[in-house]
């Protein structure tokens, strides 16, 4: 699509960027005495609406909805944004397969703001209509379903679906015309691979398991990373130091939460150039990712406050803001 088609949408997003949370506002939130005070501060800033009041979960959910409402209204082509909801769609698939195989029903485990909402996914899995799923998702769903039924190994089921999700994101990135989607896909897959390597090392997983869980991407070699994970944390850091993800090695050496924060900050760094892009879909995608990031950060702060975490522990987990 012609970049000029996004002129209206980008200008609208620019106006909305003025209301994104800044680092100083997040500091204010961290300095609040209680979760209630945080919620009051957020409410004054326009978070939530009359119906959500000061209910944290409802407020955060409403903010997620608001973001998608803006994107749906402004974007001339929504197909570009599908890749951003892949994680939600694949989560729904995982949840549906587990519900069907275990015959246990749970509430509030599905995402509804994605291309295949929970009820539809549940119906597909119940009726084994995997052919209705898009692309390679159908094969992954069939494989995960059979595996869970035969082995009752929930982790293996998760690994199959998570890898399929990463491969779908990477494929969408490769096929995308827009650079930001390619960068998003590359960063998402690479960071996921690094997380898998670190967690596999901590839990003593085998090389075969890691290779089964990791997805190929340009910046990370699955073979080298998984071998490094077998050798230990130092080997992972040493391998990452030679890649575009060298910052992750340093964060890993600090603490697990510093690493998690680095993963999110890396994504924000990837999208930051979009602040200076006046046309194309880039600023819209960046806004969507930035909103997800700030909602996640607020959730971390609220959880920390509600559980009486020390201020320093919360501050360590606070993500960098887009604006």
């Amino acid at each position: 699509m012609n970049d000029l088609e996004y002129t209206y949408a980008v200008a609208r997003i620019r106006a909305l960027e003025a209301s994104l949370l800044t680092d100083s506002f997040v500091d204010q939130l961290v300095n609040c005495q209680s979760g209630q005070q945080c919620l009051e501060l957020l409410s004054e800033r326009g978070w939530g609406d009359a119906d959500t009041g000061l209910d944290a979960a409802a407020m955060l959910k409403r903010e997620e909805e608001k973001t998608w409402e803006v994107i749906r209204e402004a974007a001339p082509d929504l197909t570009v944004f599908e890749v951003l909801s892949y994680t939600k769609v694949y989560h729904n698939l995982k949840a549906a397969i587990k519900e069907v195989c275990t015959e246990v029903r749970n509430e509030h485990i599905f995402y509804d703001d994605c291309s295949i909402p929970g009820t539809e996914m549940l119906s597909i899995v119940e009726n084994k209509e995997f052919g209705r799923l898009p692309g390679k998702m159908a094969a992954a769903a069939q494989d995960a379903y059979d595996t869970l039924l035969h082995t009752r190994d929930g982790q293996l089921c998760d690994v199959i679906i998570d890898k399929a999700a990463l491969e779908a994101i990477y494929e969408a990135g490769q096929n995308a015309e827009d650079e930001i989607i390619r960068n998003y896909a590359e960063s998402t897959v690479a960071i996921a691979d690094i997380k898998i390597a670190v967690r596999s090392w901590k839990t003593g997983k085998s090389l075969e398991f890691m290779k089964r869980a990791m997805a190929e991407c340009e910046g990370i070699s699955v073979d080298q990373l998984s071998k490094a994970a077998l050798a230990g944390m130092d080997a992972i850091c040493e391998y990452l130091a030679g890649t575009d993800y060298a910052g992750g090695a340093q964060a890993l050496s600090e603490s697990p939460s510093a690493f998690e924060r680095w993963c999110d900050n890396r994504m924000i760094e990837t999208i930051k150039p979009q602040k200076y892009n006046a046309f194309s879909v880039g600023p819209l995608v960046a806004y969507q990712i930035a909103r997800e990031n700030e909602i996640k950060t607020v959730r971390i702060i609220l959880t920390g406050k509600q559980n009486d975490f020390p201020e320093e522990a919360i501050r360590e987990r606070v993500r960098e803001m887009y604006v």
Partner: protein
Amino acid sequence: MSQLGIVYALLGAATAVFLSGAGSALGVGIAGQAASGVMSEDPSKFAKVLIMQLLPGTQGLYGLIIGFVTLSKIGLLGGGVADVSVQTGLLILAACLPIGIVGLISGKSQGKTAAAAIGIIAKKPDQFGKAMLFPAMVETYAILALLISFLAVSAIQI
């Protein structure tokens, strides 16, 4: 043959008006989309974004001026059409080209720059003055083209 001369001269006037007008229409359209985007979220910035949207509209006026001067030159506005030779007609056509071509290109470019500047206003309205300078820079080249077309059309003897 003399009629062909007047045709060329009229073609020059039409080129000046048509191309620069088209450039302005494109530019104002692009800036207008951006202005609407900002207005949908923050109507208080109406005046500032409207000024930005108007900036690419000047090329159309410059084309109109050259078209008007050309029509006046060949006597069409005075009621008596001058006897314009083919050579003179072609000279007038050539004289009208700068504002036509530069008007088209600069109009669209200024529209894109104005849209980007509207983005600045959306985030930092206090930077309106500086933001306006960026699209205004594009105007320089439209003015230069206007000057050359005006001097050239005026200098042609009929």
